[in-house]
């Protein structure tokens, strides 16, 4: 009896020794980074904002305001106006008048001049805009500083250049402006989405009523201030803040010639029904469930970086996020190991800290949705892998997460989570990879990772997605068109293609 115990003890000790010797990496406290928060004292936030209509900030006729918070602290930053039907009507009328009297009559070069001015002002104010974006949205300052704000300026620069070259863009035809464009944008890239919407609209001679997302109105209001400083004629850009109801007023207003919406597929469908038969033009940029396909011959360490960038960039609040990883079965164990190590190094916390990689979830509602879907993944039997990072007490947070052993039928493989959660699946043949990648109602983006050039073309040409990245992910450029297949929407933003959505072509 006692010998058995002894043997077991010896065996356990031996097992422990093997476990102790098993290679593993520790990402702990050997050398810690000190906090390095970006200063906020240079950012002016008013205690209360009105609506930007006709070139002025005016109090809402609705007389209603609502608080806007910092999702990393849950502290209120300011109050913004809740625009009602009368407010939206005033904004559309201001835009109509500005279009009729000023903007459509200006020489194209003069329009370009104003847009260039906006671009330069964004650059001049880039530091304050980045801090404001991070405070209101929760994204890491390194992203708002290095991605959102520079790209927003780049979009204005790019489309400023097109303003007087429309006859070149549409050879042999005359490009006429549409009129008032109602533009409704999401909370994941508030300033950048405003730029994507406003810049091409203005370049083509349209005027704009912009409705920023309910949770992230502050940089759109800062952009309104930029428009004013740029001396943009009153009414060319109007900003109405509010929730879904305000957006519905914009969509349903008879004075609006075109609706451009970026947001969820669910709301996109509602909008499409609402504008059916009205003669309004419509472009929709909706959800996604992108497949990131990693072949065994890929540059594996860079592919892991791409996977991380694809899903954890902006906490996964990215419509084109690479939220489904399709990895060739032979390298799945290695990719899984490398991914686990890599998410251990992701720094979650104060979004204003310059070393933060993963910021706050944008809202409590979004956090609840992420938690629900992650729970469904656990319940349906996928294996959960999560960073053990510390979670701040206040604010909305979710640690970088991935699931292995995911089936195509799992909710986490089919529904857009819009959070830092990756579903990992394997495939054996390229055929199977393409089939699985396309087996989704969405079709916004995809990624292909292989060191073999011919395979990139073979695979990417068969993917039903508007954007396919090869050996990289989440790369954006104003010159490159962006948009979806299937339920990810229609219409393109960016590039010369983006102009087409904002003009009426005549012979």
């Amino acid at each position, binding site marked *: 009896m006692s010998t058995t115990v002894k043997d077991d003890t010896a065996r356990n000790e031996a097992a422990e020794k093997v476990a102790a010797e098993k*290679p593993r990496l*520790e990402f*702990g406290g*050997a050398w*810690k*980074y*000190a906090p390095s928060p970006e200063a906020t004292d240079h950012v002016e936030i008013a205690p209360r904002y009105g609506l930007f209509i006709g070139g002025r900030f005016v109090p809402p006729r609705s007389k209603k305001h609502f608080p806007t918070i910092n999702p990393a602290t849950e502290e209120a930053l300011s109050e913004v106006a809740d625009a009602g039907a009368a407010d939206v009507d005033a904004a559309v009328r201001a835009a109509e008048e500005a279009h009729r009297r000023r903007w459509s009559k200006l020489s194209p070069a003069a329009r370009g001049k104003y847009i260039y001015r906006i671009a330069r002002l964004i650059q001049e104010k880039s530091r304050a805009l980045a801090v404001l974006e991070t405070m209101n949205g929760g994204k890491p300052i390194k992203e708002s500083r290095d991605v959102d704000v520079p790209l927003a300026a780049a979009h204005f620069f790019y489309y400023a250049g097109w303003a007087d070259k429309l006859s070149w863009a549409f050879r042999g035809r005359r490009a006429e402006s549409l009129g008032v464009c109602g533009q409704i944008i999401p909370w994941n890239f508030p300033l950048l989405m405003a730029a994507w919407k406003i810049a091409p609209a203005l370049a083509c001679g349209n005027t704009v009523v912009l409705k920023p997302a309910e949770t992230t109105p502050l940089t759109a209001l800062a952009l309104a201030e930029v428009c004013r400083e740029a001396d943009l004629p009153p009414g060319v850009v109007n900003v109405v803040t509010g929730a879904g109801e305000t957006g519905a007023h914009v969509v349903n207003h008879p004075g609006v010639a075109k609706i451009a919406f970026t947001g969820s597929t669910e709301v996109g469908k509602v909008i499409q029904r609402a504008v059916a038969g009205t003669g309004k033009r419509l472009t929709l940029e909706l959800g996604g469930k992108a497949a990131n396909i990693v072949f065994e011959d890929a540059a594996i360490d*860079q592919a892991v970086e791409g996977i991380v960038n694809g899903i954890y960039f902006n906490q996964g609040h990215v419509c084109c996020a690479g939220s489904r990883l399709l990895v060739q079965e032979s390298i799945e164990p290695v990719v899984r190991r490398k991914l686990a190590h890599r998410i251990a190094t992701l720094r979650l916390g104060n979004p204003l800290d310059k070393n933060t990689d993963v910021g706050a979830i944008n809202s409590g509602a979004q956090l609840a949705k992420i938690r629900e879907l992650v729970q469904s993944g656990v319940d349906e039997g996928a294996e959960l892998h999560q960073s053990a990072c510390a979670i701040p007490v206040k604010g909305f947070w979710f640690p970088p997460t991935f699931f292995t052993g995911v089936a195509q039928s799992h909710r986490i493989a089919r529904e857009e989570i819009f959070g830092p959660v990756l579903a990992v699946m394997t495939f054996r043949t390229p055929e199977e990879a393409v089939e699985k990648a396309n087996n989704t109602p969405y079709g916004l983006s995809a990624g292909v990772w292989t060191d073999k050039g011919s395979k990139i073309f073979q695979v990417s040409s068969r993917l039903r997605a508007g954007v396919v990245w090869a050996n990289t992910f989440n790369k954006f450029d104003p010159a490159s068109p962006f948009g979806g297949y299937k339920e990810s929407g229609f219409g393109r933003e960016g590039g010369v293609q983006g102009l087409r959505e904002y003009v009426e072509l005549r012979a």
Partner: protein
Amino acid sequence: MSMSAAVPVLDLSLVPRVDAVGVEERAAALGKRSIKKEAKRSGIRLAISMLDLTTLEGKDSEGKVRQLCRKAVRPLPADPTVPHVAAVCVYPNLVPVAKDALAGSGVKVASVATGFPAGLVPLPVKLDETRRAVAMGADEVDMVIDRGAFLSGGFTAVFEEIAAVKAACGPAHLKVILETGELETYDNVRKASHLAMAAGADFIKTSTGKVVPAATPAVVLVMLEAIRDHYFETGRRVGLKPAGGIRTSKQALHLLVLVKETLGDAWLTPDLFRIGASTVTNDLLMQLAKESSGRYQSADYFTKD
């Protein structure tokens, strides 16, 4: 010793490819880490403790090496809490001088060998030089690989040469210099890293310091990733020594960030990470003094050795 049995273990076709755009992007992103206050102070001290203070010139004198050794033991005379560097790296003929000057200090003596910097001498000469350097007191040997052989596909020859030098080192630690500036592609850097580790390198080292480019952040990252894979394949921790072109504290801290976020805590020690440099020392000391006084001091306050 027979190396032929060991060669088939390493199939270089299985070595992962490297995407140049991706690896440069990642290396640059890690250069944007904001290292302030306590992180900067402790990072600089750590970097100093990892230095291989180096002088490899034809005109090196006994006096110069003695001065360098003095600096190695006590980098900042005014502040005895600043740690000594890891090693002093010299040509073989100056090993006895360094050995004598560093006796009892804890600072190691490293010697270049194997026909440094080109490595274009016959193998017996390389082995003899290695043995002599160790006999003269070198704790560590920094060898160069035969880049010509590597680039022409003579991987077996390179492997066998490294393994033979390792054997000739006896108890001395072997650092294998790949001279990445002459390997042209990251794929080659990655291959050469695996080759050197499989052949027995205790450390892999980027450069001789005689060729530009040298220890670029991307090359360092590729080698760190190779070390990581080797560790998971074999359980053996191999060290890394970037050398050449490292002149500023910012560069040194960038290297520490690359190590911290690729290999983690275990590698943040002079046993597994070294920085081959000389001019960076005074910039590290100047930054350290600035961190405590709040002001930059004149370069004249730091010894030039």
